């Protein structure tokens, strides 16, 4: 008997899924399918989406600092291309000499202005398929795609308490090709979002605290790879590590020694590629370093004179047939235009901007992976209790009760515990008893947190 046979005996006779679980999963899928049928179907948002969410938070945008240093990397008309390690070590040396922009004091905000553009691909029916048989082997040929970049100018204001304002104004859409513009027209010119303004209050966007983080590159890299830095978190994988380092490089207020360490971490990451002299998305010259995973290359562009991050872009590493875009197409970019400390939230700030807004996460189970509802309000326990009473929460408990795992309760609401974690102004509410629930999850009990 070998180890595979032994393994195959392990947990071999588990029952199949419960009918309710299957029905719930199928119901969720059918709902998603129905939702998708409102034409035009927007599909295949590039992998940028996650970092884009972070950009809403855009804690800081590295603008070209005013301090001019002699060009250290590509001296004059130097044709000799130094290696990646050398370029990044030089960037690290420059970073270490730069002043950090201070985080905002009381009544002040850290202001950033950036330009972002993401490729949105939509599909409409291909008129040709009405008269010709369309190719089954290439399903995307049955649809006609148009890909369009909708640039946005985004401004953020973040106070020391992590609360502030974000405003984004959409500019004129840019079609990749005339053919794609035609496909869009043929589909009845659906609205592309140009001219739209988003303006909303932000809360819970605290500054990255580097005071307990090492500046020794190996130690720092280990922490990043283990996803051990609070709020610098993401799925596993080396590409993600590259993205996370990019996220931290945006933060111009972190100490110069820390920025320097970040460049040294990039220098040590495997598979990072030196792109040499490139232009950032608004045409400023910089040095590009890139990481390719699957169909996407993520490029960071920094200013060799100041080591500030000028911008980032994602490019299709090869032709992506289902998006109908050729290799080299820019699928997303962000350019950091300006960052400074200001004394106001700007004109016509939306109500509530700059004020911490209490968020509440009501969790179904004492685990951060459990399903949760996120709400706003003053009283976490009362807010979540209401959800349990209404039956919005508690599907799992109901099952345990039915199965006799827990005693039947006349009132379906379990005892609730409120905990506080890394994010200010967020209270996490879990079913359970006593403060140990919070501690087990690496949090502390909220003041006044027992329901």
């Amino acid at each position, binding site marked *: 008997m*070998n*180890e*595979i046979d*032994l*393994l*195959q005996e*392990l*947990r071999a006779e*588990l*029952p*199949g*899924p*419960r009918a309710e*679980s*299957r029905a*719930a*999963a*199928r119901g*969720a*899928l*059918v709902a*998603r*399918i129905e939702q*998708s*049928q409102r034409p035009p*179907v927007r*599909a*295949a948002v590039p992998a940028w989406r996650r970092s884009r969410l972070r950009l809403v938070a855009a804690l800081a945008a590295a603008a070209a600092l005013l301090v001019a240093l002699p060009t250290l990397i590509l001296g004059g008309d130097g044709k000799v291309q130094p290696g990646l390690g050398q370029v990044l070590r030089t960037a690290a040396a420059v970073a270490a000499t730069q002043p950090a922009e201070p985080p905002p004091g009381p009544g002040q905000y850290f202001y950033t202005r950036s330009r972002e553009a993401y490729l949105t691909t939509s*599909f409409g*029916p291909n008129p040709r398929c009405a008269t010709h048989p369309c190719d*089954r*082997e*290439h*399903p*995307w040929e*049955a*649809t006609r795609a148009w890909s369009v970049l909708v640039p946005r100018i985004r401004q953020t204001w973040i106070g020391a308490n992590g609360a502030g304002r974000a405003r984004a104004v959409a500019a004129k859409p840019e079609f990749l090709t005339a053919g794609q513009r035609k496909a869009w027209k043929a589909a009845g010119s659906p609205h592309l979002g140009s001219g739209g303004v988003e303006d909303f209050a932000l809360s819970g966007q605290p500054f990255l605290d580097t005071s307990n983080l090492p500046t020794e590159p190996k130690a720092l890299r280990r922490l990043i790879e283990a996803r051990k830095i609070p709020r610098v978190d993401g*799925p*596993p994988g080396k590409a993600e590590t590259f993205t996370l380092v990019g996220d931290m490089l945006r933060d111009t207020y972190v100490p110069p020694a820390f920025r320097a360490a970040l460049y040294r971490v990039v220098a040590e990451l495997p598979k990072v590629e030196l792109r040499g002299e490139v232009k950032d998305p608004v045409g400023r010259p910089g040095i590009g370093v890139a990481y390719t995973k*699957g169909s996407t290359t993520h490029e960071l562009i920094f200013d060799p004179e100041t080591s500030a991050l000028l911008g980032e872009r994602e490019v299709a590493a090869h032709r992506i047939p*289902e*998006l109908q875009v050729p290799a080299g197409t820019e699928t997303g970019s962000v350019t950091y235009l300006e960052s400074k400390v200001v004394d106001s939230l700007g004109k016509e700030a939306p109500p509530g901007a700059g004020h911490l807004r209490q968020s509440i996460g009501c969790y179904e189970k004492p685990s951060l*992976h459990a*399903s949760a509802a996120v709400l706003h309000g003053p009283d976490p326990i009362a807010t979540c209790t209401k959800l349990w009473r209404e039956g919005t929460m508690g599907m*799992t408990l109901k099952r345990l009760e039915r*199965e*006799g*795992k827990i005693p039947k309760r006349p009132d379906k609401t379990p005892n609730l515990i409120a905990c506080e974690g890394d994010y200010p102004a967020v209270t996490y509410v879990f079913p359970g008893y006593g403060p140990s629930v919070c501690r087990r999850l690496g949090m502390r009990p909220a003041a006044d947190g027992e329901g």
Partner: protein
Amino acid sequence: MTLDSEAVSASLHTPAGFATIFDRHFDAVHAYLQRRVGPDLADELAAQTFLVAFDKRGGYDPAQPDARPWLFGIATNLLRRHHRDEVRQLRAYARSAEDPVLDAFDGVEARLDASKMRRELVDALANVPAEELDALLLYAWAELSYPEIADALDVPTGTVRSRLSRARGRIRAALGADQPQAFGQPVPEEGGSR
């Protein structure tokens, strides 16, 4: 009966057709997830797998007639976030001889399984790195072939071969000296000790 690839392609025009993929494969995906992390998390992750699959159906390789490797690949990605929980459960099992996964079922007696070899096996599994564990369990539990695992994990077949070989070597080493094969030695594709 249509091929999975045809059903996925057709669902690009008529999305409702994607439900066919669900009906064909939900139970298999759920069974695999459940075997790894227990019924509760499996309910959640299996449902998510099909939502993700639906959203990504435009990227499905139409040359691949069977959707299972693709679906198991998505399920494996979703499992990654729970690797630590999985390992914790395996360690608890090895320590107490009581499997938390079995324990989660109504009606299934939480069998006390004191077999020394079983506990050593579970302990060894807990020490297999995540990437190797995925390859190993897709092979042993999902019963995918090497090329299918390669598709699921988006790595070359040679990588699957070496991950499996390393994982099996680790387990053999942990199960003790009565297993003659050396750590890390390549193993034949069909399994079986040489």
